């Protein structure tokens, strides 16, 4: 954990202003890495403390932890790590906030509860209750409610784990044995993504174990609750860091990043930490696994019906794990699909875990900007490898009245290879949703 030495390396040159998403959407020194580091420095020097100055916690919470500043910083100051340390200080002194207690304490570590929530959301969406909210009167009256509601994806699928056994076998003799780490958000919101990706993997001869893991711990770490992070990490590491698995794969880049640092999470100097460290090299994100371990096979791919795709790099993938080429290689391999880079593909979407819920104004601004850039790219399908980014981008697009389906690269690949179980989402056009809503409003 970085301390004072890390902080004083910032000599306030201001280069972070050119990349910090919260600064670019506010032009305010209160919302930039340099300012956050300065405050943390004063905190460490004892000028302020969280118990007397609650406003300080707000400033520390405003950071997305996207890591853009570290890349642009000539002294490579790790603002995200510094913020986590500061939040840990806050949590230790003051405890988690209510929202965090509810979601991080009550939902994420307990997948059954989370799955029940998903079922309720499905009921809400499928029953048409959603249309009531989107009706003219309620929409005006509760625009904040509509904001939160927009995070719910269209055609929400069943939780991934429902109806999925602990082991998925290929029809022929297995070529590789892997553990699939099923993350909370993937499980709860993107069941179809997981199912189709697994179908693709077994079609390529992978024998897949899906251990009953709990939350990866990254949300807890981001909010500064390092004790809980360690607890979760210990639980998971027993289940997935096993000799028998040749690779530990996950479709979620946040989980992948967290798992790749599990030796730190469980305690770097402990016995478990050492055991985990030896197997750490086996953690791999789904895209990289397909490209580098299975190898892209292009012979039996068919057009998917989509014409142009663009890709959003999640912070945890591009800056956390340095993954840039693998997802692009997959998308470019699909016949009939043109890959078009969007402007600012690697800039944070403003989702940042629960940031969209805790900081609606800033997060909403960033999402709107992202949605505009996605639309500008002219893509009719958006691809990303992070379930949280997908929720945030989906919400941003929805609020901008644009319907662009969002698929994981491997999910698209599964459709192209003809092994996907789910019906491929149809191409939506900007204004489609508007038309739908208008139609609803015309109803008596």
């Amino acid at each position, binding site marked *: 954990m970085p301390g004072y030495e890390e902080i004083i390396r910032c000599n306030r040159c201001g280069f972070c202003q050119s990349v910090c998403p919260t600064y670019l959407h506010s032009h305010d*020194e209160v919302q930039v890495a340099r*300012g956050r580091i300065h405050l943390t420095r004063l905190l460490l020097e004892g000028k302020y403390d969280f118990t007397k100055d609650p406003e300080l916690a707000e400033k520390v919470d405003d950071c997305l932890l996207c890591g853009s500043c570290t890349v642009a910083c*000539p002294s490579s100051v790790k603002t995200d790590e510094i913020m986590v340390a500061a939040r840990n200080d806050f949590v230790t002194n003051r405890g988690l906030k209510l929202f965090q207690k509810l979601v991080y304490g009550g939902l994420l570590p307990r997948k059954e509860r989370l799955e029940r929530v998903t079922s309720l959301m499905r009921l809400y969406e499928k029953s048409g209750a959603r249309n009531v909210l989107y009706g003219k009167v309620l929409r005006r009256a509760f625009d904040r409610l509509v904001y939160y509601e927009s995070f719910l994806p269209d055609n929400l699928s069943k939780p991934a784990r429902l109806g999925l056994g602990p082991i998925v076998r290929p029809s022929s003799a297995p070529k590789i044995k892997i553990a699939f780490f099923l993350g909370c958000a993937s499980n709860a919101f993107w069941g179809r993504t997981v199912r189709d990706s697994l179908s693709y993997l077994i079609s390529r001869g992978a024998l897949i174990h899906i251990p009953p893991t709990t939350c990866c711990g990254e949300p807890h770490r981001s909010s500064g609750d390092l004790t809980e992070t360690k607890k979760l990490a210990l639980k998971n590491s027993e289940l997935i860091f096993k000799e028998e698995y040749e690779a530990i794969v996950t479709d979620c880049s946040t989980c992948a990043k967290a798992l790749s640092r599990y030796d730190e999470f469980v305690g770097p100097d402990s016995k478990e930490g050492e055991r985990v460290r030896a197997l750490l090299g086996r953690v791999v994100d789904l895209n990289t696994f397909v490209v580098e371990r299975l190898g892209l096979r292009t012979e039996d791919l068919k057009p998917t019906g989509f014409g142009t795709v663009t890709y959003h790099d999640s912070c945890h993938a591009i800056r956390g794990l340095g993954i840039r080429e693998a997802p692009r290689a997959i998308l470019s391999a699909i016949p009939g699909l043109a890959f078009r880079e969007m402007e600012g593909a690697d800039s944070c979407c403003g989702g940042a875990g629960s940031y969209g819920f805790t900081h609606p104004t800033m997060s909403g601004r960033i999402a709107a900007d992202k949605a505009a850039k996605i639309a500008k790219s002219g893509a009719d399908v958006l691809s990303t490898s992070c379930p949280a980014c997908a929720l945030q981008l989906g919400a941003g697009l929805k609020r901008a009245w644009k319907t662009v389906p969002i698929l994981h690269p491997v999910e698209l690949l599964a459709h192209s290879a003809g092994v996907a179980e789910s019906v491929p989402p149809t191409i939506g056009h900007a204004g489609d949703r508007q038309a739908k809503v208008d139609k609803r409003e015309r109803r008596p």
Partner: protein
Amino acid sequence: MNDQRENGGFNQRSLKALTDIVGRGYCRSHPIDLELYSYDSSPFIHYPWAVVIPGTVDEMAEVVSLCRRHGWPLTCRGAGTNLSGGAVAHRGGVLMSTTRLNRIVDIDLLEETALVECGVVNLDLQNALAPVGYMFPPDPASQKASTLGGNVAENAGGIKGVKYGITKHHVLGLELILDDGSMVKTGKLKRGLEFNEPDLTGIFLASEGTLALVGRALLKITPLPTSYRTMSAIFDSLFKSGQAVSAIIADGIIPTALEIIDRTLIAALEDYLHLGFPVGAEAMLLIELDGLGPELNAQLARIKDICFKAGAVGIEEAENEEDREKLWLARRSGNGALGRVKPATIVQDVTVPIVHLPKMLSLVLDIAERHRIVIAQMAHAGDGNLHPHILFDPSDGQEYVRCLKASADIFAAALKVGGTITGEHGIGLEKVAFMSDEFTEAELDFMASIKASLDPTGILNPDKVLPKKWQPHGGKGPF
């Protein structure tokens, strides 16, 4: 601080009056917010009473007028990347941030001008101009963050300074906010054409926000060159690299950029970017030429020749655009990357006649040795502009004192060889004490008379640039 506030009659009603102008959320007085507007890129830290972030030039003018009526000190700040303490509120008062005024109003290719608001970031203008084949030549190393209003106020130089000149050569007119809040236009911005008048725009360049504030600026833009050649030459002493620079200029070649980077910086930048810089080499000279391809090849051959004669031990040419970008990214990151060596820096920008450059570089080395401190040197060598970075650890008080002494020695040395104490970073707070070394009494009196006529109450960026004696009311104001 509170006493001062009371002196200015600053209270909740004052905050309300400011809020009424800029709107809710854009006037701040919470101690933590003030903390974040108490610094710039220099070591100086001073707290304003309130921060305002206006959204339009008119709001700026209203704030100025209110400050003048009440006699509150007013400091205007862009991105807060000033290196001489020019953007901190030394006397408290109101700190105005221009970062929301970031609209590029117009780009006119026929006239080759760009009209911008003061808060537009230098690089954002470059990025807007590049697709149409143009650039704004002044490119200070801080261009990623620093605003054009700040560039004008400081008369910022840059890497391309050797060939293209500095900010003052590219400003055609200004819309100024005077100390009473009235607005005037100068130069081409007034008439739409250049006519015969005294250069009224000129006196506001490098005025550091002490004479008037810049609302909008009309800038001259320049077509992008068609091709570049970029190379780096390695030397085993700073002196030799300086000699090479003098020889290149003496030969009549005008490169776009001639930059010297010393041993400490080479190591820090290599640690940051991993470009394969020769860690351990004493000096590296970055050279860039622009223009037409065939002409450049001949010049390049001559430069190589000169460098080898001056004692270069190795020369490497950037093979493609990517390599070139990396070299310049390295150069621009110099200031920030020194955080890897020591946490704080005083950056000097003394400038000397080009013949004395080699000598001055070695003088700085001697000074560092004499005071037992680390000085990392960078230089816009082509125009004789040195950037000694005096590194220190703020927790070591004695080291800081030695640094200040070294700083004074560098100023004295530069003045002795006929140079100046600042080439582009401004006087700010840092160099005020040295103004009387550089200028005669009569010259300072002349400057004071300009200051007194434009800002008689002394509200605009008090205590900066002119020593106390030459400030309005002997620096006791504002009233």
